[in-house]
């Protein structure tokens, strides 16, 4: 895998080399420029990024499931095609992100093992069930919408491979959000039953989507350091507030409502405010006690285990082919 050639887990360095590395790193951060895989970086920076990028990759992969759940039942062939393409994009996002994470020194296999073993996290949002077709709309509009708010600033993240992966991902995500919006718009202008389906889905996904930005700022211990490292650009609450402002506008066009009567624009702070969120529920879902945690992990584990013989076969075949080639080369040499 190409990414593995970029791995740069550093060998033992002298104190002088460490100091020079740190100085270089500090200068890059101060200039708001980019750290690349072979550059020296603080161990904590590497660890933070590896955690964030791999969690992000896992979220894409687990996030395929609630939508894949509706591919077979999509109510028109056009919607089926769009949904297939969207879920396929998510697999692609997972691939770029695993590749970006590999440049930090961990293999995709190890990350996948950690995910299946329940040691790695992924976005809590994907532990909610996609119960109706309208959920395909609400996931696209709200969940991908929140993801975009989070991810656009990440295009400028100080770690080069991550920032570059995010540029492409964000382009595709904006399509995803539009298709979600379109699904809801169609339903909202459809039969009364369809409109009700759309409203129910928005009601169910609204609060979990807001919680995707993470805990409130005064309860987010890692945010400050990530901001100092130019990984994170805006605080959780700042991004959440922006997102609410966008949704308030868009929900009117949809002819639906957000299930929150406390949304308002604070003229003093110039920020959008929203009603209270159930952070206890958020913690429960993160701790593995959400509605679909067990189901999602089991499905990933099953696919991984069922595919083991295929991966082994591909590796064995590649090894045999390589052995054949080197035999041929030797014969030539002789």
């Amino acid at each position, binding site marked *: 895998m190409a990414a593995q050639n970029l791995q740069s887990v550093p060998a033992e360095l002298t104190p002088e080399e460490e100091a020079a590395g740190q100085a270089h790193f500090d200068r890059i951060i101060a200039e708001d420029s980019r750290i690349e895989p072979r550059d020296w970086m603080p161990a904590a920076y590497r660890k933070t990024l590896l955690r964030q990028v791999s969690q992000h990759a896992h979220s894409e992969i687990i996030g395929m499931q609630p939508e894949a759940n509706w591919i077979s039942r999509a109510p028109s*062939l056009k919607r*089926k095609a769009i949904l297939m393409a969207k*879920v*396929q994009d998510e697999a*692609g996002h997972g691939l770029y992100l695993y590749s970006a994470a590999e440049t930090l020194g961990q293999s995709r296999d190890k990350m996948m093992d950690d995910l299946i073993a329940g040691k790695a996290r992924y976005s809590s949002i994907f532990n909610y069930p996609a119960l109706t077709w309208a959920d395909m709309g609400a996931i696209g509009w709200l969940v991908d919408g929140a993801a975009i708010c989070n991810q656009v600033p990440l295009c400028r993240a100080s770690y080069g491979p991550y920032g570059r992966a995010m540029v492409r991902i964000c382009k595709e995500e904006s399509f995803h959000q539009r298709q979600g919006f379109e699904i809801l718009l169609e339903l909202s202008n459809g039969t009364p039953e369809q409109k009700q389906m759309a409203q129910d889905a928005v009601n169910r996904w609204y609060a979990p989507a807001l919680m995707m930005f993470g805990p409130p700022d005064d309860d987010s211990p890692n945010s400050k350091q990530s901001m100092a490292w130019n990984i994170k650009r805006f605080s959780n609450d700042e991004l959440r507030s922006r997102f609410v402002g966008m949704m308030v506008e868009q929900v009117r066009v949809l002819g639906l409502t957000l299930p929150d009567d406390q949304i308002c624009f604070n003229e003093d702070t110039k920020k959008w405010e929203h009603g209270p969120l159930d952070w206890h529920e958020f913690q429960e879902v993160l701790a593995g006690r959400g509605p679909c945690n067990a189901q999602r992990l089991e499905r990933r584990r*099953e696919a991984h285990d*069922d595919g083991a013989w295929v*991966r082994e076969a591909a*590796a*064995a075949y590649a090894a045999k082919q390589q052995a054949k080639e080197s035999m041929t080369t030797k014969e030539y040499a002789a």
Partner: protein
Amino acid sequence: MSTAHTNPETTTGHGDISTGVAGGDSNASATRITPGNALRPEDIALEVRTGLVKPSGDIAEYALRLGDDALILAQRLGHWISRAPELEEDIALGNIALDQLGHARSFLTYAGAAMTNDDGSARSEDDLAYFRREHEFRSVQLFEQPNGDFAATIARQFVVSIYQYLLYRRLTESTDETLAAIAAKAVKEVDYHRDHSAQWVLRLAGGTEESRKRMVHGLRTMWPYVGELFRDDDLTQRLAEAGAAVAPSSLKEDFDRLAGEILSEAELEVPDVPAAPGGGRHGKHSEHLGYILAEMQVLAREHPGASW
């Protein structure tokens, strides 16, 4: 990998770009950016609505057969998305499913132009996909065979992709411009499918003992349904004589050759299994199709007349 290549002369220029059916050299695949002039089902639908194209009853029935094949396969392959052995295969099988769905939509849209709903309107792709029952589907039974394990899916893909490649390559010469245009787009895509499945047949056959055993089993499971692909009937005979369709039997020799090349490279034998009677082209299906339709149609049927 194989000796057969599309003759560029046979895959260019059917119809006029400005009217939508820009068949010909639509070098589009779901794997690449679709150029602005690629043939889309919406283009055909527009031509149907504006009365630019209307297939004969025979042509419509033929298009329905090919459309149903592709639709049922897309439905089967779509199941792999999020369940494949590797992320790369989630993407590859998803791509193939998408290509098949695209072909299905084009063929069904065209077929529907010759059929009417109760209110007199032409039947749309969705009318045909969601509001027909098992015995009204015209796909051959190979397409509805269960995915099984990855080797069984690859075995089905191996047969289907060679068959579709040969069929569409010939169909680009159809006297029916719309069929030719759909085939011109499709042949490039199924050529990739052929490459994908052939590579996996080689890998699985030459990988481990386990994978070889499964590959052999997968081929044996699918092979009873191979014969049906190449069976002629009155319809294909009439259309083939008129130059509009490809006689299925005329593809058999090339199929045997192309499949045989890969199987022999993989040191596999053509499975020696009794052929199933088939009958899908006339609405006789295996037990599997009912479940596929039940799942595919459930939501659309809960909301008849709704738009999505």
